């Protein structure tokens, strides 16, 4: 029996290449980064089967809690466990400080941009952002023009995706300003992690994130309509078939608010009510997890049964707060994204703390020609899509796929952007019984009520397949807990 023997440092690592991509744990010459030393030592000290035992116990914990997501386009087994990696991703206090300042700046500017576009449109008149770009965006909602939004907050809940480039610098890949998801995984990961590595966790001095639901509730409450001191706050879900349904039930339970579907809501005289066994109860704040298009058949898609008829008019009348506001997808359009640094300069007179990824707008002829000639090196994305759908990764594509995308780009250039294939950072993951590096991103969650709050943490998503650059849960990604260190 060699079960009691500790795993030696070098047998701990499997196929662990170090190349030009930034490795979260090791520097290019192979030494450990200082803040990863304690983690590596703990792993090296653990008997081999103990690590596996902890992994199994963590897996089981997810399974019995029913922490699942739904994969579209499959008849059978639509509920799946979200894959989970046992090792935490560590971020130093200094790195986090920059992320926090950068995101606060960015979200402030994006909110100002939305307010501007839906009111005076100064930024368009000053030709900082092209008018055609905004008005051709499929998430632009003309119904929002001139509408007074409570506290002028359009985007109360945001999850921005960050990547770390080979320079070690964090950049923003995209802003999710509509209905960002994944925060329940951030919270459940942490709970499981504290149970799996209790000593390690306490020795590291990790900043807490568990108060997120409470903070979210406070944010929603701060946005309630005037004169409603005890607002009735609800979470609006599309229902049990939505991929994030688990998260909706989780957040509603954690906040102690009702989880409602469109069919639970009725409007009368521009007031939204929910049907309860005690009669109609007025609703003041709706945390909306239903897309714009499906929210109100009277205003948006008429064939939608997920929303509430008359919701938008009640919102317009100021009798109910719906958050995020409608039409916020305008500002996370992947082509509008290219202008965010300019927005920050325009509204705040500052330079962006967190840079953008270089982005080619395919509606510009010169850039389009360059992109079409270099499709095999670039990543092409549809501007209005999310979740890793509608994407071409040049270096990993076939000639046929590239031709197909070229055709689509020519047909509708406004619908696509291109970016260089990013060599973003990798973090060690437990693959089998060895550590191997996998590409990771980071999605911190930003709350915007009275002020901007960012819980120190986020969802680190992992591309669990070797060499893969796609971290989306719908496309075989997993996640790991993210520890923001006190020091």
């Amino acid at each position: 029996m060699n079960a009691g023997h500790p795993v030696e440092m070098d047998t701990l690592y499997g196929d662990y290449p170090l190349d030009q991509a930034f490795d979260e744990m090791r520097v290019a010459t192979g030494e450990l980064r200082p803040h990863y030393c304690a983690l590596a030592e703990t792993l090296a000290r653990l008997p081999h089967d103990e690590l596996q035992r902890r992994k199994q116990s963590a897996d089981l914990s997810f399974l019995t809690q029913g922490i699942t997501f739904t994969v579209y386009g499959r008849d059978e087994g639509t509920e799946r466990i979200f894959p989970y990696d046992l090792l935490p991703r560590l971020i130093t206090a200094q790195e986090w400080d920059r992320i926090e300042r950068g995101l606060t700046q960015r979200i402030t500017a994006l909110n100002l941009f939305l307010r501007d576009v839906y009111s005076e449109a100064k930024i368009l008149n000053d030709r900082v952002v092209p008018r055609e770009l905004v008005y051709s965006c499929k998430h632009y909602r003309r119904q929002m023009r001139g509408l007074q939004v409570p506290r002028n907050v359009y985007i109360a809940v945001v999850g921005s995706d960050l990547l770390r480039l080979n320079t070690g610098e964090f950049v923003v890949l995209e802003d999710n300003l509509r209905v960002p998801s994944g925060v329940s995984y951030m919270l459940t990961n942490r709970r499981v992690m504290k149970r799996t590595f209790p000593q390690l966790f306490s020795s590291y001095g990790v900043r807490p994130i568990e108060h997120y639901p409470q903070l979210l509730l406070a944010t929603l409450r701060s946005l309630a309509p005037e004169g409603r001191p005890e607002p009735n706050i609800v979470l609006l879900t599309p229902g049990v078939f939505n991929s994030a349904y688990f998260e909706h039930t989780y957040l509603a339970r954690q906040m102690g608010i009702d989880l409602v579907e469109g069919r639970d809501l009725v409007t009368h005289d521009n007031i939204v009510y929910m049907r309860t066994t005690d009669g109609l109860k007025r609703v003041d704040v709706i945390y909306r997890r239903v897309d714009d298009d499906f929210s109100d058949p009277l205003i948006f898609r008429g064939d939608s049964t997920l929303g509430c008829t008359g919701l938008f008019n009640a919102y317009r009348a100021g009798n109910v707060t719906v958050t995020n506001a409608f039409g916020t997808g305008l500002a996370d359009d992947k082509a509008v994204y290219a202008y965010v640094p300019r927005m920050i300069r325009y509204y705040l007179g500052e330079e962006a703390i967190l840079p953008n990824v270089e982005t080619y707008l395919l509606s510009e002829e010169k850039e389009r020609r360059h992109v079409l000639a270099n499709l095999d090196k670039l990543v092409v994305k549809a501007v209005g899509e999310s979740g890793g759908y509608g994407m071409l990764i040049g270096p990993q594509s076939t000639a046929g796929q590239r031709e197909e995308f070229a055709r689509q780009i020519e047909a509708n250039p406004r619908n696509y952007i291109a970016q260089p294939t990013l060599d973003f950072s990798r973090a060690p993951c437990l693959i089998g019984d060895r550590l191997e590096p996998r590409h990771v991103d980071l999605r911190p969650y930003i709350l915007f009520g009275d002020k901007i709050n960012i819980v120190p943490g986020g969802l680190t998503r992992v591309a669990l397949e070797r060499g893969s650059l796609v971290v989306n849960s719908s496309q075989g990604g997993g996640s790991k807990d993210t520890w923001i260190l006190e020091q």
Partner: protein
Amino acid sequence: MLSRVADSLYWMSRYLERAENTVRQLDVTMSLMLDTGGASSEARWKRLMAALGKPAGMEWNGDLEQMARKLVFDSLDPAAVTFCLNGARENARQVREEISTEQWQRLNRLFHQMHSPNAQTQFDSNVNDALTSVVDGIHLFKGVSDTTMIHGQGWQFIRLGRYLERAYATATLLEVYQPDLFHAQEREHSGYQYLELVGLLRCCTSFEAYCQVYTADLSPDRILEFLLLNCDFPHAIRYCVDGIRDAIDNIQRTGGRRPPDELTAVTGRLHAMLGFTTIREILAGDAAAFLHTIREQCMRIHELIYRYYVHYSIQSALAV
């Protein structure tokens, strides 16, 4: 509580009760068929179907095993046990945040048990064991429901669904059996007649309870009295109606709304109908009509619950 949630809990509970009832009646019928001296298999099957509300597509075709398998496993047939269990689980899934983890796990386990490939094999090798394990699963669920859930409105809607379904099913069963029972009384008492009476009691898991009250001396009027008017036995209609009334009282007490008069009237009337009568009076009158009225009143209560708690019009709610 949200109307939709109350509705889902109510139906979750009704579907489970229905599944249990179907399983028990099928089990009893199949074991009665082993004694070939009494009624024919076809007559028994017809009686079973009548007691289950005459579902379509379940006409006797001579192949008992195939029919029984269909009644248990055909998840597309609304009469089938799996159909009911699927319905219960689907309702529970939609209100996952309202029920306890233990409840969800029991129900989920039962669901997977019924859909596992072993289920049909086990059924083919030992019908009785297979059916008993389904009833066991449902009993476990009821147990954890009572011990792990807040006894608030949601729990009351679960009770409401259970007792309403049970009262209706028992009334239907008695209505179907009733002509046979009293017709047979004129004939010689035989072992077969005894088996029939035990079967009827076992359909309501009430054989032992009956014996405690009346000894093993089985007579049709006592059985009818027991299943109709006993106020301490959970499968007796009177007990169920008390349960319905109690659940509605509690729902009204915890809610802020004025009690709906009509609902109070209908449940009160049914309660009084069963509480202030004797079996002699019922038998002197038209027993079948009496049973039929119970069923109608149950349906009326269901409609009123819907109208007051679930599908009320906006105008009526705003007027309050």
